[in-house]
């Protein structure tokens, strides 16, 4: 892994050099369309940023290999990556750089809401369209901005869907949780998710008996697990990033903590492929995961672009597509679609085209949505998460019910550790 990272970096330097040389000497057939991509490539969320980056690269390559943007005489897509380091100020600076210096036509990113929020403001001010990837903070598409579009869920949707799934299972099986524990990472994402869950859970008559935030990079979850054990909730809602989610899950297994209605994760660690590489499969059995794409889409999809994207992801990262990779892919295809319709790399034209987006098929829907169409605030109203349950090591879609495969039946309530 280390080797490939180094190799890639070196390659990049060489490529940059070659490119400068090429630009000096010859003109391109059609001028490439530059798109900026601001992601946390170092810092706390670097792993996620990297997976998204791979998705963006794969999609751009697929489009370019297929002849580029046809309405622009086969113009190539050129992606300029910028590292936000998960820091708002760096993200903003990088956004400025990519817009002013690299002169990109469109931007995407930036995963961390803390970065996306101020960075999209720069884009709005500089009249450059931005396709939000991964950030769920509601306010991002509630500011009457004209240039900001979001394909994925808002945070409040995530919380509602989790509770929806519980309600659905309750109806289906006649039993369900009454008391809930919440364990979440103590930064922006985890905390805002918890706040949303609290509101919706109260509305639907669930009682929150443990409400526990954990600072990132814990070395032990024993104390939190014990607290959950003492409070005896029926289920736990978890919002943790990969390292903490791993530790939590491992310790939960070690400590044989039984919850009748299981673990409901809102993604984070449990949608990271690295998570499943690092644990014995039984550790995550019966866990519910809410993801921003449909994990078993590869089974249903026949789209060659999606299938080859999975192969390409495996080649680049050593594991298959994740929600992050998928979102990266989706964003690029949405942008390409807009470019085709705009017939121009001009920012205004592109903005107009994006606003008109209505995708109902193709690789842009790798995320499992059946449509992508933005409302006047730029939010994709067709966005939804998909909740799967881990059955025998495989995540099988359970919610929405219409996405459920024929052979998928939820296990509800979940068996105790001693019965597994």
């Amino acid at each position: 892994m280390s080797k490939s990272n180094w190799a890639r970096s070196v390659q990049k330097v060489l490529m940059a050099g070659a490119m400068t040389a090429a630009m000096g000497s010859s003109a391109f057939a059609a001028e490439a369309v530059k798109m900026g991509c601001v992601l946390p490539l170092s810092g706390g969320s670097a792993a996620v940023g990297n997976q998204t980056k791979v998705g963006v690269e794969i999609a751009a390559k697929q489009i370019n290999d297929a002849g580029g943007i046809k309405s622009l005489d086969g113009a190539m897509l050129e992606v300029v990556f910028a590292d936000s380091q998960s820091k708002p100020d760096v993200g903003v600076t990088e956004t400025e750089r990519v817009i002013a210096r690299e002169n990109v036509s469109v931007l995407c990113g930036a995963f961390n809401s803390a970065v996306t929020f101020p960075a999209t403001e720069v884009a709005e001010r500089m009249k450059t369209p931005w396709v939000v990837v991964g950030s769920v903070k509601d306010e991002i598409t509630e500011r009457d901005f004209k240039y900001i579009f979001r394909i994925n869920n808002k945070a409040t949707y995530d919380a509602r869907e989790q509770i929806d799934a519980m309600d659905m299972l309750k109806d289906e099986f006649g039993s369900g949780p009454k008391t809930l524990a919440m364990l979440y990472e103590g930064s922006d994402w985890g905390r805002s998710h918890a706040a949303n869950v609290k509101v919706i859970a109260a509305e639907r008559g669930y009682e929150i008996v443990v409400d526990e935030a954990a600072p990132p990079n814990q070395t032990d979850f024993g104390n939190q697990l014990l607290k959950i054990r003492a409070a005896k909730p029926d289920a736990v809602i978890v919002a943790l990033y990969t390292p903490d989610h791993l530790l939590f899950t491992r310790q939960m297994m070690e400590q044989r903590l039984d919850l009748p209605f299981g673990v409901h994760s809102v993604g984070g660690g449990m949608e990271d492929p690295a998570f499943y590489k690092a644990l014995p499969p039984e550790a995550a059995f019966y866990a519910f995961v809410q993801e921003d794409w449909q994990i078993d889409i590869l089974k249903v999809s026949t789209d060659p672009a999606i299938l080859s994207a999975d192969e390409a992801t495996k080649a680049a990262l050593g594991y298959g597509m994740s929600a992050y990779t998928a979102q990266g892919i989706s964003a690029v295809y949405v942008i390409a679609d807009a470019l085709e319709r705009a017939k121009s790399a001009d920012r205004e034209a592109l903005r107009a085209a994006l606003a008109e987006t209505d995708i109902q098929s193709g690789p842009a829907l790798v995320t499992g949505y059946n449509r992508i169409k933005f409302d006047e605030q730029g939010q994709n109203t067709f966005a939804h998460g998909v909740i799967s349950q881990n059955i025998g090591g495989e995540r099988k879609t359970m919610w929405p019910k219409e996405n459920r495969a024929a052979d998928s039946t939820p296990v509800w309530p979940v068996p105790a550790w001693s019965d597994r």
Partner: protein
Amino acid sequence: MDAFILSYAVVNGLLQGAIYGGVALGLSLIFGVLRVVNFAHGSFLMLSLYISFWCWSLFGMDPYLSALINIPAMFALGYMVQSVIIAPLIKRESAMVVEPLSALLLTAGVFLVMDNAALMAFGPDVRALQAGYYVPTIVVGGIPISGQRLIAALAAFAVAGGISYWLRHSDMGRAIRATAQNRDAAAMSGINVSSVYAMTFGLGCSVLGLFGALIAPFLPISPAIGLAFGIKSFIVVVLGGLGSISGAIVGGIVIGVFEAVASQFVTATSASIGSLVLFILILIFRPQGIMGRA
């Protein structure tokens, strides 16, 4: 809160606290002898975790077995950091007491370089030793105890005891203690002070080599893990008494049990604020720590 949960919390706290203590041992030892606060302490642990990971992932080596590689590797690295980076500083300021602040800055530099070089080399992905590797959980009085954590906790006691015994009863150990107490007098007794310094630094780091191998089986590994343990180690050794071997273990257990019990009453976040407050109070009112002599 019932007695079962309380005793469960204490067991958890003891296990985790002993591991904190074990990880902090080297920091305390190095400070006790060289008067250098090694800001890069956590980075050495991080590197050691990675060595264990790579040994397992590339060669399928048992993580506990990889201690045989980790310990000498970390010893060599520590020895080198001392003799190449810190020794010139000590030499330059040989006419005076080693200036703790410049040494802190140097090790802060080492921290920045190590953590970020690891990020460059290994990438930001979280890694963990996989699935198959598993020591069973034992259940005592209804309380499940992770086998891997138990091994690491027992090792902390063993290593602390071993180092204390070795410091007391071996020639090199006595030389290290003598150097810690009076550098010039040690030199006048025929002790090669610079080699003692390098040995001590190496030893302190090799303890991290061992613990890297012991906690790799249950801890997710990322370049950022070092700082988490590093800050914890500072708290632990200040609490126990900088420079005291038994103090590191005692400090670790105090913090471990404090956090475990406190987080049953308040949130874990408030408990961690509590341990920071404790840390500040100790520094201000009892800078020698619990076990240190006034």
